[in-house]
């Protein structure tokens, strides 16, 4: 029975990294809503800059639009990199007074798949370094990484595969969830005769069961094996 106004615990994403540090599976289960759309009049008070082929706010933080936010859409048309879908350059459209009043949507950029692969490999190396720098003998790598907006849990199996889960900082029971994901991996990826080890996982049953496990973990606020 749900209480009124219960806080929804979120599991943001799941990453699976193979022995060599390559990303073999990635799932975004929940994404926090950080998009803001506002109507502006000429001239625009925000200073925009091109960073990595994206239009980013560099100065003039206001009304929830923060420095580092990317321009996602103009008047409802999604922006691809630095130009709109019809080919017009974003900065030119914004500099032209005739296009005003203009509705622009800003938000945190979504990670591209290349970036995800890079971040997974980065984490793989950080895991090893944290084990090397340990002041105690026989330490593992990073198992829990805490920040103020999310918590990252990592479980490394004896075969070197890492299961990484990003959740809300208050989420509990992530250890049992990680073990459950390992079980699901063993049952639906490893036992699949068409799946080769260390390759990207493209098995439907793995996806379905993983989503089911994540949903029951979110629903109860912590994962219990009985559910």
């Amino acid at each position: 029975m749900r209480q009124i106004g219960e806080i929804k615990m979120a599991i943001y994403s799941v990453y699976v990294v193979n022995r060599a540090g390559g990303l073999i599976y990635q799932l975004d289960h929940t994404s926090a809503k950080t998009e803001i759309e506002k109507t502006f009049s000429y001239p625009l008070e925000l200073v925009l800059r091109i960073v990595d082929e994206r239009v980013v706010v560099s100065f003039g933080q206001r009304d929830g639009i923060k420095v580092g936010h990317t321009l996602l859409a103009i008047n409802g048309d999604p922006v691809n990199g630095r130009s709109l879908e019809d080919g017009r350059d974003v900065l030119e459209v914004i500099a032209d007074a005739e296009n005003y009043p203009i509705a622009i949507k800003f938000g945190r950029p979504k990670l591209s798949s290349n970036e995800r692969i890079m971040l997974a490999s980065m984490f793989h190396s950080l895991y090893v370094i944290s084990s090397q720098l340990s002041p105690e003998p026989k330490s593992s790598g990073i198992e829990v990484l805490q920040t103020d907006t999310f918590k990252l849990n990592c479980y490394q199996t004896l075969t070197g595969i890492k299961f990484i889960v990003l959740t809300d900082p208050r989420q509990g029971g992530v250890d049992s969830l990680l073990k459950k994901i390992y079980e699901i991996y063993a049952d639906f990826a490893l036992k699949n005769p068409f799946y080769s080890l260390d390759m990207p996982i493209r098995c439907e049953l793995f996806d379905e069961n993983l989503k089911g496990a994540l949903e029951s973990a979110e629903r109860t606020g912590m994962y219990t094996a009985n559910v």
Partner: protein
Amino acid sequence: MTIFNIHIFDRNGTCLYYHEWNRRKQAGMSREEEFKLMYGMIFSIKSFIARMSPTDYKDGFTNFKTNKYKLHFYETPSGLKFILTTDLSVNNTRDVLQQIYSQIFVEFVVKNPLCNLGEPISSELFKIKLDNFVRGLPYFQIRQS
């Protein structure tokens, strides 16, 4: 409950101070290399969470835990990084690290006309004060090993 060691880095990556209280395993490399590796790891973790974070963050990375130790991190707005490694039973050290910064570092290093910022700290007073402060923490105990 013990504290293993502390590193203090400035914004350029220079290790200003290092001290260990209980450390069973040496890193297997020279001190300078270890400092660079530690700074590099922290810098990479900060960059990693900046990209991975699902929403905008305020404080950033606070700590990480392995199966044997826990590393606590605090960064001041001026780019000074305080890194403390402890055992697993220690929880929130953000206020401890903030106290180390405001009551010990600022008082005995920043306000000291003989201490140049950006260079390793050679002030004996700072070392004594920090040592006393850390030993006075409720979760500090020298291990019999």
